């Protein structure tokens, strides 16, 4: 459906024919000369030019001669080809055929090097530096400049993470233009003038400068054409020519952003944005860029562990031994629940599904390691699985994009940047159904539909959406009764944007109590038979192919804590993420637990068998992005003994005597293709009614919350500089809600309390916003989006939170 819609709206491309270096070329109207030249294979040197940034014409490196501007007259001076659009009949001569252009380029290159330190041997950019490369290809062999160069103290930190060596800067303004145009965070700017011009940060209140705290700051390092911008993380760590680069996919959100992972001698040194025009273009979030150290922490699991019956300690064991203990425990258990979590690759997710259904004979499998609902499960089965109604390109073309329970800047950076591109071009109008206009929404110029958490269903229905609208719903709507039903019935083109990289893949793999792989409903005998045939397993007599829907995560944990389940198989799940962490801990203590994890966690602490699995970087696989795009990647590091979940599950299955039918990622992928999508009858969309209005007593408020990009999540461990660029955790509420609360406020429940500095913001009265996992994990005090809590004045904590922007 999407393809047809696109074909109908695309206007025919108007071509313009011009001559470059005596070669005639036809390019779309509006193309810049520098890019038209690329099409005939001529690479005009450039620094300030970047295809995704507005032209600026500052560096003057790309000068060409225009002997005919298309009107029969030549242009008297050499022209910057990055600023000149093509014209019919235009005649352009580049350095290849024009001595004037060649001299102009050589002249500019020599001038650029006048104040450049030429410290390439100690510069991080040396070896991959556009200035170095182009000085070789378009410069003089020797500089005539023997005089005094401009110097600056170095480095100048524009943020905790981004360091600036000003003397190397060629003042191309790529970084400042990126910050302003792409990210919408104009916290760096060119200051001073002449050769003293430099990139700087604002004066701030303290006079020490307001730092470059942008979620996308790392992109400036990558597009810097010299070594002026470096990250605290990578500075002086490696040389480009010692690195091995592998294309991959970011694992921190559901965007499927293309990245490049550079490693040296078995260790990842840095990550860069890949170039995928269909997905993330050339940008990634700082989380995608810097957060790769989480799998290299001291708590990394390296060997299988089995709990010693006598000491109660986990002791290292051989793989065969651990697999056997796991199999015996599961065999003996009276009912096994499977909690795979949302961080799996599609292949690993598929393996969990087959393991649960065909090996354990249960539908008690649910990837949703967070607040969830039956309405959501039905929504995912009916309206998400196999659906591809919205693409990234639609986000910059649609007339109106409605966000419900979703904050793209925090939760899906590539979506945020695409929406910003669309709104900046004046094409897209963004509407957000939220408690307030977040900073991200402000940067999208979004219209706010002020909504008390829990009332999203009505807000969606009231918008009267149609097929020309795009509706993006976030995973928070799971706890807002009727919201997902309203979304499914809205008539808009709809996409579900989860937070985790494996969430969408888990839906496609059927890791839900009522859903089998490929959109097959559990309750359909036909679908079950079709799947069983494709899997070539039918279930054995002691583990019959289950026919009834299973239990959700919450129900499984509840059952386990009261003896209704005998064992749990747990994948990458954080206890603190679960709907009720205390019930989860209780359940994990009580039953036989097999944990497949990368690092020690609250689950492994309570597990009977711990089976270490490979981190994303150590295995091949694929993520399915929010728009249903399969994003395959290969292993970056070859680590012997690092087994993907699929291999471990296959091992347990074989010990149980009921093999999965595949052992490797490639085999799992092949089996998935054989299973394919279901073309039979599907689960109907949910039709849950909106919940009643949240009732709050005096002193109570409704909580609006989500996870900010930079927070206490364990995927960000090992990155203190990155962590320091996060936003200050604050409580936002209207002045009326805050009443006499002035500096700090405490929210509390029966379980616990948390105190935040307060910021007055435009929230509906009776609603507060707090970050979900910054300083305090709200789940631990029983608070989620839509919870009702008590609000009271609070005391400033002893230890002040680090200074940051509110």
């Amino acid at each position, binding site marked *: 459906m999407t393809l047809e819609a696109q074909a109908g709206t695309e206007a025919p491309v108007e071509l313009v024919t011009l001559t470059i270096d005596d070669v005639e070329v036809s390019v779309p109207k509006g193309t810049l000369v520098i890019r038209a030249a690329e099409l005939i294979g001529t690479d005009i040197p450039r620094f300030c030019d970047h295809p995704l940034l507005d032209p600026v*014409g500052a560096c003057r490196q790309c*000068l060409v001669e225009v002997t005919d501007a298309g009107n029969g007259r030549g242009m008297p001076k*050499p022209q910057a080809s990055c600023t000149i659009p093509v014209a019919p009949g235009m005649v352009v001569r580049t350095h290849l055929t024009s001595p004037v252009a060649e001299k102009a380029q050589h*002249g500019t290159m020599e001038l650029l090097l006048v104040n450049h330190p030429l410290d390439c041997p100690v510069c991080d950019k040396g070896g991959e530096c556009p200035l170095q490369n182009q000085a070789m290809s378009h410069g003089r062999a020797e500089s005539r400049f023997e005089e005094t160069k*401009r110097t600056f103290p170095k480095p100048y930190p524009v943020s905790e993470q981004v360091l600036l060596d000003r003397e190397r800067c060629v*003042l191309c303004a790529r970084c400042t233009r990126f910050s302003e145009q792409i990210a919408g965070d104009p916290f760096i700017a060119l200051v001073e003038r*002449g050769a003293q011009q430099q990139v700087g940060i604002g004066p701030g209140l303290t006079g020490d400068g307001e730092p470059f705290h942008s979620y996308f700051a790392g992109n400036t390092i990558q597009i810097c054409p010299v070594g002026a911008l470096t990250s605290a993380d990578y500075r002086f760590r490696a040389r480009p020519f010692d690195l091995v680069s592998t294309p991959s996919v970011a694992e921190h959100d559901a965007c499927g952003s293309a990245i490049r992972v550079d490693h040296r001698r078995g260790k990842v040194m840095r990550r860069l944005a890949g170039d995928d025009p269909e997905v993330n273009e050339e940008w990634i979030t700082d989380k995608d860029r810097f957060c790769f150290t989480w799998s290299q922490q001291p708590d990394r699991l390296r060997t299988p562990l089995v709990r010693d019956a006598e000491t109660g300690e986990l002791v290292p064991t051989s793989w065969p031994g651990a697999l056997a203990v796991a199999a015996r425990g599961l065999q003996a258990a009276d009912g096994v629940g499977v909690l795979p979590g949302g961080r799996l690759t599609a292949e690993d997710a598929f393996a969990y599904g087959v393991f649960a259904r065909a090996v354990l004979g249960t539908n008690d499998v649910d990837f949703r390691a967070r607040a969830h609902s039956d309405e959501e499960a039905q929504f995912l089965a009916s309206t998400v699985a196999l659906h591809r109604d919205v693409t990234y390109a639609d986000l910059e073309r649609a007339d109106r994009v409605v966000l419900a329970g979703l904050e793209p800047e925090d939760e899906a950076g590539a979506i945020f940047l695409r929406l910003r591109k669309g709104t900046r071009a004046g094409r897209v109008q963004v509407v957000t159904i939220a408690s307030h206009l977040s900073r991200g929404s402000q940067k999208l110029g979004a219209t706010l539909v002020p909504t008390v958490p829990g009332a999203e269903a009505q807000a969606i229905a009231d918008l009267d959406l149609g097929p020309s609208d795009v509706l993006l719903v976030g995973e928070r709507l799971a706890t807002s009764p009727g919201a997902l039903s309203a979304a499914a019935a809205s008539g808009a083109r709809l996409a579900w944007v989860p937070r985790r990289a494996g969430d969408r893949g888990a839906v496609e793999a059927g890791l839900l109590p009522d859903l089998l792989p490929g959109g097959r409903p559990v309750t359909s005998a036909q679908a079950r038979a079709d799947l069983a045939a494709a899997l070539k397993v039918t279930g054995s007599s002691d583990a019959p192919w289950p026919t009834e829907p299973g239990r959700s995560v919450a129900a499984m944990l509840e059952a386990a804590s009261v003896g209704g389940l005998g064992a749990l198989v747990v994948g990458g799940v954080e206890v603190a993420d679960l709907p009720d962490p205390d019930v989860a801990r209780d359940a994990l203590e009580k039953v036989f637990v097999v944990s497949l994890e990368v690092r020690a966690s609250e689950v492994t602490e309570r597990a009977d068998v711990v089976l270490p699995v490979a981190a994303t970087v150590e295995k091949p696989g694929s993520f399915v992005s929010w728009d249903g795009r399969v994003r395959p990647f290969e292993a970056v590091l070859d680590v012997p003994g690092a087994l993907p979940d699929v291999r471990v599950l296959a091992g347990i299955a074989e010990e149980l005597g009921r093999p999965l039918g595949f052992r490797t990622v490639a085999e799992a992928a092949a089996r998935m293709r054989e299973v394919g999508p279901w073309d039979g009858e599907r689960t109907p969309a949910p039709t849950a009614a909106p919940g009643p209005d949240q009732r709050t007593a005096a002193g109570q408020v409704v909580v609006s919350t989500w996870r900010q990009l930079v927070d206490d999540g364990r995927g960000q461990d090992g990155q203190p500089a990155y962590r320091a660029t996060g936003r200050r955790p604050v409580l936002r509420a209207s002045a009326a809600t805050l009443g006499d609360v002035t500096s700090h406020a405490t929210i509390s429940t029966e379980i616990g309390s948390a105190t935040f500095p307060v910021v007055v913001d435009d929230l509906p009265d009776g609603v507060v916003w707090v970050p979900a996992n910054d300083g305090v994990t709200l789940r631990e005090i029983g608070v989620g989006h839509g919870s009702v809590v008590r609000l009271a004045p609070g005391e400033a904590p002893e230890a002040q939170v680090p200074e940051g922007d509110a």
Partner: protein
Amino acid sequence: MTDTLTPVLSRGWADERSWTREAYERRGGYEALRTALGMTPDDIVTLVKDAGLRGRGGAGFPTGMKWSFIPKDNPNPTYLVVNADESEPGTCKDIPLMMANPHELIEGVAIASLAIGAEQAFIYVRGEVLHVVRRLRAACREAYEAGYLGADVLGSGRRVDLVIHAGAGAYICGEETALLDSLEGRRGQPRLRPPFPAVEGLYASPTVINNVESIASVPAIVRGGIEWFGSMGTEKSKGFTLYSLSGHVRRPGQYEAPLGITLRELLELGGGMREGAKLKFWTPGGSSTPILTAEHLDVPLDYEGVGAAGSMLGTKALQVFDQTTSVVRCVLRWTEFYKHESCGKCTPCREGTWWLVQVLQRLDRGEGREGDIELLLDLCDNILGRSFCALGDGATSPITSAIQYFRDEFEAGLTTPSAELFPPAASTLFATEGATR
């Protein structure tokens, strides 16, 4: 010789409190505004176009034609911006004009605003000249009080509001698009063109940017008419203008004369060179116009005449230097100015001026190296026409022209300090040795 002068803008500068509204009205001030209110906007534009008024800020672009570029169908408001950021070394015409006769500028603003359909005008004044800012603001207040500005200009129902805006001290803000950025509250750096200011100028709206003297000349044209205006000047450079004579001349100052007058005539009006002085070189229009020498004394000082002599009329800032002056030192000072004022946006100007200064410094010290003159010329060639705006071009003009006429002095810089050849004390205006006033 006094009959060669045509005081129009400078008429009445000697009057008692000439800058007040009262004094201006006594001179017939604001009568042109009443006349203009009786004309259609198109008629005013046609009048200025037919009169042949050309921009007095340096480039000489026909003012009326600039006005006619304003699109009629643009939904955004139209703005008039007066460029009063006079900062060029040697240029000193607008500041005295605004000090002595601010109301003529304001009347011009009102008429020009009517002509282009602007309800909001700005005068962007160089920030360093606080006295001018204060005087303009006082005059603006007076004009509002008398109804020459405001929501209902002289009861016509037409609105013209005027803001006097002080810059923050950057030569680059005299470049019209940098001025617009600065006026918008941004850092002043030139903008990419297109879009041109006539289409997307101030706040992305149609904007006319004119020099102070151009706008101040408009009331006189309305008063005197096309024929009167054309009776002065030359065929293609019509009318009167302010010539600013400075340097080693007996009576420096503003000389308002028809376009096409020669330096020889102006020097005579100025009492000639100072005692014992011989003209060595001069700038026709500030330091960014190529220098000329005594052989150009009879060049008609209009756009075409100076252009034919290999320079530019520019701002008609005639800086006159005598034989005591070191060309190398003078060019070094100018180049230091451009280095200091280069905005930094583009490579050739930013890095080129940095380098040029260092080469000129060693020539000035007598420590020049073989090939330095060729290096200077080659650097200028790599800057001229390669930089983003005209600042970089202007920075090369004094160097290339000075080498053209005084190459031997640069060659001497390989061995002898300029201070030895031309003791600096002798070229000061208060010097008594070698030259006296």
